[in-house]
């Protein structure tokens, strides 16, 4: 993966409908996708991630803004002229063709000689391990097999970018996990830029080099999984990825004062923000429970939920603010806490972040 940019979307707007009823599926989105990376567009349904993908593929045209591929403006180029291929959510395999014919289709359309088509098709069959099914009609195959055919078909023409529209959503959990590592392996082997769309944040975190979190047609944050998780830029990103606690308060010098008077040290607070109402976010696994003391926030245990590997402990601060703490369950299964117990809450260094609302 290099720093070189392959896809560049600038100020992209996509509106549907007319006049006052018009809705913006994409509202001024700009993003750079780097060559050779596994980039994921993540967000809830309706956030615009699929729309952006379709704009890159060429099935829709933006209402405003531009899209460039390796420096070439492809904004109004029809899809069959873009060196970009798609793996569809419903696979869209051609039912009247065999697996091999499906895979070779793109190369045939490009007018490649028959020998080359055959050779490349065999390469792809090997890549996705479907050699034995080459002459089978696609209608009689399982979901997982169809998915691999769709993948091979999209990779065969050696596109500059591969677009994947929630390709794993129709698979059961076991198969999905297998395909996730398959896809990652394929991407690293072929070195092709993957743009992957999903609403499953765990999927995004495990597979991506970088993630673009979207909501309501806007790009909320772009970064590596670690960056997104540990330093979420705003409330949406913080709550969409993983679990988090939100603590409202007022900004002070290098700290935030909660409504009950407790003070939380926050490293990244700027001097300018003093006096502003802010929200602190802390991941549950970075909250420490200890005995009540002067360096810790006073809290009472309100409930304990046993999850097997984890135990979630809900505590309430003196003003009622609830904090969820994630503990690793001890061998005995008993966390040694009881409901109503007075405890002290503290946070690891740098764990407390301030987010925009």
């Amino acid at each position, binding site marked *: 993966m290099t720093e070189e940019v392959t896809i560049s979307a600038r100020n992209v707007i996509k509106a549907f409908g007319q006049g006052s009823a018009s809705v913006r599926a994409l509202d001024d989105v700009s993003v750079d996708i780097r060559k050779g990376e596994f980039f994921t567009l993540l967000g809830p349904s309706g956030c615009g991630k699929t729309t952006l993908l379709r704009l890159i593929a060429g*099935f829709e045209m*933006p*209402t405003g803004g531009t899209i460039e591929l390796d420096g070439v403006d492809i904004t109004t180029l*029809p899809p069959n002229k873009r060196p970009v291929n798609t793996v569809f959510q419903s696979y869209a395999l051609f039912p009247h063709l065999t697996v091999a014919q499906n895979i070779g289709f793109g190369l045939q359309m490009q007018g490649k000689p028959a020998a080359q088509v055959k050779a490349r098709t065999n390469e792809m069959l090997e890549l996705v391990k479907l050699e034995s099914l080459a002459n089978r009609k696609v209608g009689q195959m399982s979901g997982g097999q169809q998915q691999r055919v769709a993948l091979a078909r999209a990779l065969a023409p050696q596109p500059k970018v591969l677009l994947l529209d929630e390709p794993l959503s129709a698979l059961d959990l076991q198969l999905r996990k297998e395909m996730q590592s398959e896809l990652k392996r394929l991407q690293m082997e072929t070195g092709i830029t993957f743009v992957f769309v999903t609403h499953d944040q765990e999927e995004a975190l495990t597979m991506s080099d970088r993630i673009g979190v979207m909501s309501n047609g806007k790009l909320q944050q772009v970064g590596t999984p670690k960056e997104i998780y540990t330093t979420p830029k705003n409330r949406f990103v913080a709550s969409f990825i993983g679990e988090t606690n939100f603590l409202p308060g007022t900004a002070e010098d290098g700290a935030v004062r909660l409504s009950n008077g407790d003070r939380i040290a926050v490293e990244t607070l700027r001097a300018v923000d003093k006096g502003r109402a802010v929200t602190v976010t802390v991941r549950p696994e970075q909250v420490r429970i200890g005995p009540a003391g002067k360096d810790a926030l006073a809290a009472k245990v309100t409930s304990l939920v046993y999850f097997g590997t984890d135990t979630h402990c809900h505590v309430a601060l003196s003003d009622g603010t609830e904090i969820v703490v994630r503990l690793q369950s001890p061998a005995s299964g008993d966390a040694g806490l009881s409901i109503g117990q007075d405890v002290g809450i503290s946070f690891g260094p740098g764990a407390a972040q301030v987010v925009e609302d």
Partner: protein
Amino acid sequence: MARSSFSVARLPGFATTAVLVFFALYLPIFTLVAYSFNASQSVAVWGGFSLEWYAKAWDNQQVKDATLRSLIIAVSAALIATTVATMAALGTTRRREFKGQGFIYVMINQPLMVPEIVTAVALLILFGILKTNAAEIGGPIGYFVDTVMNKGLGFIILAHSAFCIPFAYLPIRARLEGMDLSLETAAADLYATPWQTFRRITLPLMAPGIVAGAMLAFVISLDDVVITEFVKGAGQDTLPTYMLGQLRRQLTPEINAISTMLLAVTVVLLTAFFLLTRKKD
């Protein structure tokens, strides 16, 4: 800033062709209707708007007789075909498929598969045998064959009833298959006998399908040319066969007027049929 979109469903020239086709489909009919209002006899020159041809048609005794005959035949054939088709539809739906059911389908749909000229000729032969032998058979049967069937419109009605059956059958069957069985089960649960269930629940629910089937059968019978032409006796013209005869002689816009009226009836019935069979969820 609007951009042109890439429409996947667009194929070059297809929309233009389609619109031209619709245009070409209706143009001849409009021409025919337009000329029915032509005041001048010569169909080339437009002599001004006139209803004289409609008046002539209304006055024409042959036209009136033919129309009456067409109506009698169509109503009778529709009634017979619909009744018989309703029973057949009830017998072939919503039950476990039984041996020979396929044979019943083939028989019921057979008029749709056999060219009309073939049926027409076969009926000509059969009815011819019956007509010539009616006198020899004698007695009430001979009398019946001679009067009702031959001189009455019996043979024609018989022929029409037969080929109208599939047209009545299909909408009724479609309606039956879409019906909710649980309603009849509920009726049985509430102490209704099978006959009561049929009369009070099934039949009313089937009604739109039956009416649609009857209307379709009526239109088909009204429009029939070939079979009627071969099966009719002397002086037994229906409206279409009368028109066919006229087309051989001189053409006046009277034909256009008659055609337009027949057209209007068909369109009205069809619109009603369409509205009746629209799925209301």
